[in-house]
């Protein structure tokens, strides 16, 4: 159904609840039209951040999403107090976003193909990864392994959540371990990096996809650009830490415009079929028999009787 555009107000009086200025081309965009266009500027293609509900609606077959573990909530294990207690920050984020934390996971279908999917939302405390986000990514990966369906994680995060201290840091280890097991067991994983994917999320599961995709111009990096430039007083290369920079340097496979993402995932899923379960592979490996106990279609990759060791 076509959306009726209101007349453009004169004299720069665009009510902010109806209009958004595109930071790239400066054009004023009518919010309803922007939403309908998946929050991509129709004029210049700038990708605004997408909330988790819109992302799920776009990527998954209608009505196929079944959310899991929706009831997980952050606690305050360190009794962390900075200028505002952590529980207050959490409570405020819940009110403004309507979410319990910065990630959702569940199962669904993309063009009929069943997947485990975890989607992050930057609106909840900058998409920061604390125990709940780490737990959801891990449960999604473990479920993908149990059901032997591909895993997709759509990241949007400023990094680890400082208020959970090293418990947040340990979510890097927890999620990497779960992703490493998927690789070991031949279950494929696609990482989709959206603006921004930085810090501890980039330095764990987001970097480890069998296929890594990124949205155009998404900020993807390890350290803050200020830190990176300041430390060594060196000017930054053009496009530093943008999706296209990562593509050029070999860390993402494709930069995919949002409108094409669903079809691209569907196309990839046709190839990314989980390997047949290696029945007894593990027991055999324990006996040093290199996985002969089960059919292993990728066995030739392991080479010379060596066991596969799950390099992530």
């Amino acid at each position, binding site marked *: 159904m076509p959306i009726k555009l209101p007349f453009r107000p004169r004299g720069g009086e665009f009510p902010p609840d109806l209009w958004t200025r595109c930071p790239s081309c400066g054009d004023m965009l009518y919010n309803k039209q922007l939403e309908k266009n998946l929050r991509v500027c129709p004029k210049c293609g700038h990708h605004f951040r997408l909330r988790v509900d819109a992302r799920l609606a776009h990527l998954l077959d209608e009505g196929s999403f079944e959310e899991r573990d929706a*009831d*997980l*909530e952050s*606690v305050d*294990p*360190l*009794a962390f*107090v900075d200028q505002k207690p952590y529980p207050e*920050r959490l409570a405020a984020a819940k009110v403004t976003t309507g979410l*319990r934390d910065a990630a959702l996971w569940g199962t669904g279908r993309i063009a009929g193909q069943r997947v485990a999917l975890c989607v992050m939302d930057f609106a909840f*405390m*900058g998409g*920061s990864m604390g*125990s709940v986000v*780490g*737990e959801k990514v*891990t449960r999604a990966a473990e479920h993908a392994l149990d059901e032997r369906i591909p895993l997709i994680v759509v990241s949007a995060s*400023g*990094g680890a959540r*400082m208020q959970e*201290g*090293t*418990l*947040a*840091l*340990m*979510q*890097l*280890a*927890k999620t*990497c*371990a779960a*992703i*490493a*097991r998927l690789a070991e067991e031949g279950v494929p994983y696609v990482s989709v990096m959206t603006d*921004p994917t930085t*810090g501890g999320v*980039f*330095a*764990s*599961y*987001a*970097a*480890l996809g069998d296929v890594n995709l990124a949205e155009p111009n998404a900020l993807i990096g*390890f*350290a*803050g650009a200020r*830190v*990176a*430039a300041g430390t060594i007083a060196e000017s930054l290369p053009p496009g*530093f*830490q943008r999706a296209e920079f990562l593509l050029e340097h*070999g860390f993402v496979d494709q930069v995919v415009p949002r409108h094409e993402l669903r079809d691209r995932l569907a196309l990839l899923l046709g190839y990314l079929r989980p390997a047949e379960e290696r029945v007894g592979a593990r027991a055999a*490996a*324990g006996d040093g028999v290199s996985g002969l106990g089960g059919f292993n279609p990728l066995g030739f990759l392991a080479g010379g009787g*060596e*066991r596969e*060791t799950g*390099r*992530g």
Partner: protein
Amino acid sequence: MADAPTAPGAATLDARAHAWERVRHARDVKRPHTLELLRLMATDVVELHGDRLFRDDPAIVAGFARLDGRPIVFVGQQKGAETEENIRRNFGMPHPEGYRKGMRLFALAERLGIPVVTFVDTPGAFPGPASEERGVAESIARSIAMLTRLRVPVVVVITGEGGSGGALALAAGDVVIALENAIYSVISPEGCASILWRTADAAQEAAVAMRLTAGEQVALGIVDEVVPEPGAGAQDDPAETARRLKPAIVAQLDRLAGFEIDELLDARYARYRAMGAFATAQPTGAPRPERPGIAERLRTLFEIGRITLGGPEPAPLRPQAADETDEPPLREEI
């Protein structure tokens, strides 16, 4: 509470001083680093160089050594003891090729069936453009993933600064030992302070709030064992430090050698799987702890810590800027 022996403000000062002393010790340039400790406690040390892909990173050292005759593969960050060496070693801040050298050695250890001992001492991975364009985040993620599945025992020793992801890249193992004055944190206290307090001057507050001391990391279940340091700290007596550390490592190597490797991998997975604290929301009423015990146990431990050390006092109220939001900056220095 009017008759409490110490005023809350004074207790907070104590807590700050206590945490900050650990930070200063952990960063002391005279503290023994990976190679110094190995020279003091190991024999037949052979260092191996290069990641076979780009170059040799002097911020990470790796090779073979023997502890009481037992062969190990060691991988650790290496700072310098004086300015010139520190510059060459990039102050112990590895580039991706350093972590890739480590991974090369992990693979070799697995092939040879030799246990791995890692030594962690870094402010963090190097955050420069060269590091980014060669994929420092990818190298950290892959190193962590590889360690979690490596089919030989992995003993981790945090000797100084455990600086976030750049430390964890070498610190995912079966057991984690820390020297008494070692610290472990998700971000540097200065970085945390500049983001959450909006000034690096609050680094001491941040050090307290993040619970970064070795003892507090034991309470969190992230560090398993703390080895006491001699005198005022390891920097005063490196030889005695090594003499105390060696039996702790050897005991863990002997203990881990007693497990079947699949058993060990399951335990290693379970170790990290259990890390974190969260609750399950009830449809009505207050959240209830998902795993009764963990959150409560931590709380109890920290309550005890707060009583004995003095806890962080709520920051003085200041007028909130109108534009202040809960969004942390886009990127942080992890």
